[in-house]
């Protein structure tokens, strides 16, 4: 189970609204490489993972990703506060506003709703850990792309924090893959599914 803590992992305090930028950043909530998909990828892969160290890693990184959904949601929320209809139209935010007003709805930058199709839980430890490492790199690239789109220091600060977390998680999943290889039967040279075939 989970217990909610009434704080962000890292502060978000944005003074200037920017609904166009908010629509782009929304992708890190509900887009193909966003935090919602990340959390569900790791938390769902845990159950059949054959090593307690790696179950711990998936649990703890998956839980941290839930906190990242909240951070990115805080960024989007603060970028879309106190908007006038004119600002909404000028920023091209009207396509989002008409369906969600300024509510947070997990979708990609292009408005595609979140989908479980964005992640895999393959039931094969090697396969899943490679997916996880790739996912961290894809999310890092997305943060790089977002960072190029703004010069607002209030937005850059939490985006840079989140980008750095992708790099740390990539490193930790890399260690998990090494730990997994360490427990494989040496006869399992090609690393056939160690969750299923044993």
């Amino acid at each position: 189970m989970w217990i909610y803590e009434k704080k962000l992992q890292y502060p978000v305090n944005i003074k200037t609204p920017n609904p166009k930028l908010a629509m782009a950043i929304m992708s890190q909530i509900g887009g193909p490489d966003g935090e919602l998909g990340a959390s569900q990828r790791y938390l769902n892969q845990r159950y059949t993972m054959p090593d307690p160290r790696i179950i711990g890693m998936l649990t703890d990184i998956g839980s941290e990703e839930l906190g990242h959904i909240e951070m990115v949601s805080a960024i989007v929320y603060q970028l879309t506060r106190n908007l006038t209809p004119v600002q909404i139209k000028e920023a091209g935010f009207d396509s989002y506003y008409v369906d969600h007003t300024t509510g947070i709805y997990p979708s990609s930058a292009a408005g595609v709703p979140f989908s479980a199709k964005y992640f895999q839980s393959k039931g094969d430890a090697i396969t899943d850990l490679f997916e996880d490492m790739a996912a961290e790199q894809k999310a890092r690239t997305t943060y790089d792309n977002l960072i190029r789109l703004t010069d607002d220091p209030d937005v850059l600060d939490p985006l840079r924090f989140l980008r750095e977390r992708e790099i740390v998680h990539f490193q930790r999943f890399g260690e998990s893959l090494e730990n997994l290889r360490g427990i494989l039967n040496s006869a399992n040279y090609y690393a056939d599914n160690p969750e299923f075939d044993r």
Partner: protein
Amino acid sequence: MSRSELLRSIQIADFALVEANLFLDSHPDDANALQYYGKYKAMLDSLTEEYVDKYGPLTARQYKGWDHWKWIDNPYPWFPEANR
């Protein structure tokens, strides 16, 4: 410390624990990491106790017999004023 200063200190100590936690998941017998975790856990515990006494709970279970449900009082974390 003001509410926001104390909360920032809690976020810093908490972040040290998140980092050490992930590292320990893949290195469960690393003596330095265990010592580091213990140090920041003690720091976080004492900061949290100060925060709860002065400003109210960060989790509902930190209730301390108050005659008001303080859980709903402080600004929710996504409001800018919660992060100043």
